[in-house]
């Protein structure tokens, strides 16, 4: 029973993360919402690993944590570089390629 509740929580968190990534205009908050989505996926992986007794889920979660850390580092580097050029982290200010 715990596994199903954990999967439901994972779905809720994933939806909240997607909402944040789609509606907010601050680039840092968008990155944080992406982190929330990755965490929701981790929770689903751990829950199903518990269900089937397979350690592959845990290993996958470790890989996702590593990838998230790498992505945050590079993403924040991009944010800093963007801020130096435009003095703003609002995504609406970086919409030159928008048609």
């Amino acid at each position, binding site marked *: 029973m715990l596994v199903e509740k954990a*999967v*439901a929580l994972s779905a809720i968190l994933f939806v909240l993360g997607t909402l944040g990534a789609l509606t907010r205009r601050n680039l*840092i908050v968008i990155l944080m919402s992406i982190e929330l989505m990755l965490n929701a996926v981790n*929770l689903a992986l751990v829950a199903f690993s*518990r269900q089937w007794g397979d350690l592959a889920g845990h290993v996958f979660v470790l890989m996702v944590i590593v990838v998230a850390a790498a992505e945050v580092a590079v993403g924040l580097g991009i944010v800093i570089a963007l801020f130096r050029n435009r003095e703003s982290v609002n995504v609406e200010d970086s919409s030159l390629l928008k048609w």
Partner: protein
Amino acid sequence: MIDFLFYVFAALAVAGALGMLLNTRNAVAGALSLVGTMVALGAIYVLLEAYLVGVLQILVYAGAIVVLFLFVVMLLNLRQDEFSPERLRITKIVSVVIGALVGIELLVLLPAALGPAAVLPEGFGGYRMVGAALFTDWVLAFEVTSLLLLAAMVGAVILAKRRID
């Protein structure tokens, strides 16, 4: 007991996520709410008998990644933010309906499909078994991850470097 603890931590996780999303004035308070979510998720991992993953979640995610976010927010000294302009009303209604359908499916149909949880071997989710799996079955993924981290480190340093020209 475990169920009660799960509900408490699940409520904390959702509250933290909402706190991060709905907070427009203050990015730092949003990041701290995210820390609350991460710690609550770490506790849920421990409840799901994933001990190594749970403690690594707190050590890496709550202890380093969100600090990195806070560091950048303080460096750039950001202030206000707004939500995007309102979309069509029909979108909201459709999203609520789909959300309810997904919720029903997860909470009602999934337990019947999954069946009882497996009986776990002794030490499942502990550092010995996960470490053994990581170094025997999944050693290729482990080594490739180290290369990924190297690439990310080099990339982050180059991106944030101030050009001297």
